[in-house]
């Protein structure tokens, strides 16, 4: 007899394959989104104001999970795409007069612009076979380039002072408009967009496209030897990631009424990596929740003077702990707990 898997608990973990990713994620998603939908009815004030921003940071984390969790590509350039979305909307709302809703055009321009830039950069890097750490360095440079560009064109972008962005108005039909100036309509609009974005990305990731990305992550050389055009798939994944980050950035800018060069910065990009790792890079929902949880904690703890100074240090330690101990983050941890309990009941 050759090597066999030990029976028992190991087997339960072992028999779980990577392609399935987080099972039961659908149920968890319903719980998370239902919870977010109920919050404005229960609390009011600051939480209702700030949560949509955190949800959009969650979408940004999801944009990294597509790359890191599925395709195995780490990017420190997510902030760059976020800022492209933010400034595209801000600048178009400020300077353009159009017969249609300028905010819609701005959001679309931000998404498409970010996706195109991602795909152009991705095409050259992936075709040249740039992988792992070298790709990380290239994406770090991208963050710096976008940040510096925004700072340099200060007459248009406001430079280091940032750019004021109006709260957008929803156009729901030829005669029906709704201002998102108030926080509650804004909250539900952002939540609706986030849910649609999550479902769309989930659908794409469950299609053969997503499975092919997992193949690239698991064994890129095997994929090439099976005739898959790996650089093209990676380029598309990077484009989709840019599209999502651009959407998050545009909505964030109109929600915060502000776009700032630091939205593109390396520091912010690093934050995205931390949220995604803590939440669970293999799970879109995990990354989304990771961003909301860590951002909320940051906010809550910064009010406490004693902890405030140590918070970046604490975050760093949590990040290291996740990388070393729970490679699949919170989502992976929760899944393991449920699996063990379920397995315990079954036997």
């Amino acid at each position: 007899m050759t090597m066999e898997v030990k029976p028992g608990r190991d087997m339960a973990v072992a028999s779980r394959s990577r392609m399935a990713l987080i099972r039961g994620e659908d149920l968890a998603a319903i719980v998370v989104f239902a919870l977010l939908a109920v919050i404005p009815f229960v609390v009011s004030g600051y939480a209702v104001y700030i949560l949509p921003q955190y949800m959009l940071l969650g979408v940004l984390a999801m944009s990294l999970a597509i790359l890191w969790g599925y395709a195995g590509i780490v990017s420190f350039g997510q902030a760059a795409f976020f800022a492209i979305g933010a400034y595209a909307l801000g600048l178009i709302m400020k300077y353009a007069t159009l017969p249609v809703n300028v905010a819609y055009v701005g959001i679309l321009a931000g998404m498409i612009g970010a996706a195109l830039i991602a795909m152009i950069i991705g095409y050259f890097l992936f075709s040249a076979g740039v992988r792992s750490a070298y790709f990380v360095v290239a994406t770090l440079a991208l963050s710096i380039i976008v940040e510096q560009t925004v700072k340099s064109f200060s007459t248009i972008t406001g430079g280091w002072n940032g750019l004021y962005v109006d709260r957008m108005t929803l156009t729901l039909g030829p005669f029906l408009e709704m201002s998102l100036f108030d926080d509650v309509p804004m909250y539900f609009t952002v939540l609706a967009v986030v849910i649609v974005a999550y479902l769309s990305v989930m659908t794409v990731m469950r299609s053969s496209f997503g499975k092919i990305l997992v193949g690239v992550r698991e064994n890129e050389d095997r994929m090439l030897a099976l005739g898959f055009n790996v650089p093209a798939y990676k380029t598309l994944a990077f484009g989709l990631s840019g599209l999502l980050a651009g959407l998050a950035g545009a909505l964030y800018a109109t929600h915060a009424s502000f776009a700032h060069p630091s939205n593109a910065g390396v520091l912010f990009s690093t934050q995205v990596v931390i949220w995604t790792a803590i939440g669970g890079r293999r799970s879109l929902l995990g990354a989304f929740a990771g961003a909301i949880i860590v951002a909320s904690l940051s906010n809550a703890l910064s009010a406490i003077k004693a902890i405030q100074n140590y918070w970046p240090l604490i975050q760093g330690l949590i990040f290291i702990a996740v990388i070393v101990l729970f490679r699949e983050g919170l989502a992976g941890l929760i899944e393991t707990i449920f699996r063990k309990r379920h397995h315990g009941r079954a036997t």
Partner: protein
Amino acid sequence: MAVLLSTEHLTKRFRGLLANEDLSFTLAKGEVRCIIGPNGAGKTTFISMISGHLEPTAGRIWFRDQEITRYSVPRRAQIGIGRKFQTPSVFEGLSAFENLELASMRRAARSTQERKRAVDSILDTIRLSDRRDMPAQFLSHGQRQWLEIGLLLANEVELLLLDEPTAGMTAEETDATGKLVRHLASDRNLSVIIIEHDINFIRELNAPITVLHLGRMLCEGTFEEIAEDERVREVYLGTAAHA
């Protein structure tokens, strides 16, 4: 018989080392061919030039009616050349089923059901039906070898390049591998080039043999012819000639 693959004066030089020299080789459609030779004979180098993992220093490669000498690895896979590596290269974290499903995705299936059926039939062929949902990393070495052959089948290749497919297999598994290779050629009309060291396996396979030695082609023939050849006995079968 129609020629599927041919090489003309194929040569590979690594700095000072001449790994392959002037190899002119033809393989017919539906043919199984064994390549044998002592360590360092240049067997894997030869396979690597056919799969596109190494670029020849000189010479040309033809597949069907196209010259493919400068084709990339993915492009060769797309026209039907599949390679099983010496160390099994599968998707470790994915189940046997998912491995094959993924390999089949290069071509569009009419429906998910159809793809599933095709994959299950391949699982049956490679004797992994009872390991369908087990991640590849928990399969035995021999099973991973089969899974990698299955990847090539799911990928619908026409020529399989098998680099030591029976390494790490039990006698019973080796036997099953021989049957599998014969099935591929006779029932599926696929062509196979096998690099092997296991003399019993080669004898059982009863396929034409090409002997390489120090990068050059020493001779070609049936197992009996090769076994009788003085030069082969000298360089390769010398110690195993009594077997």
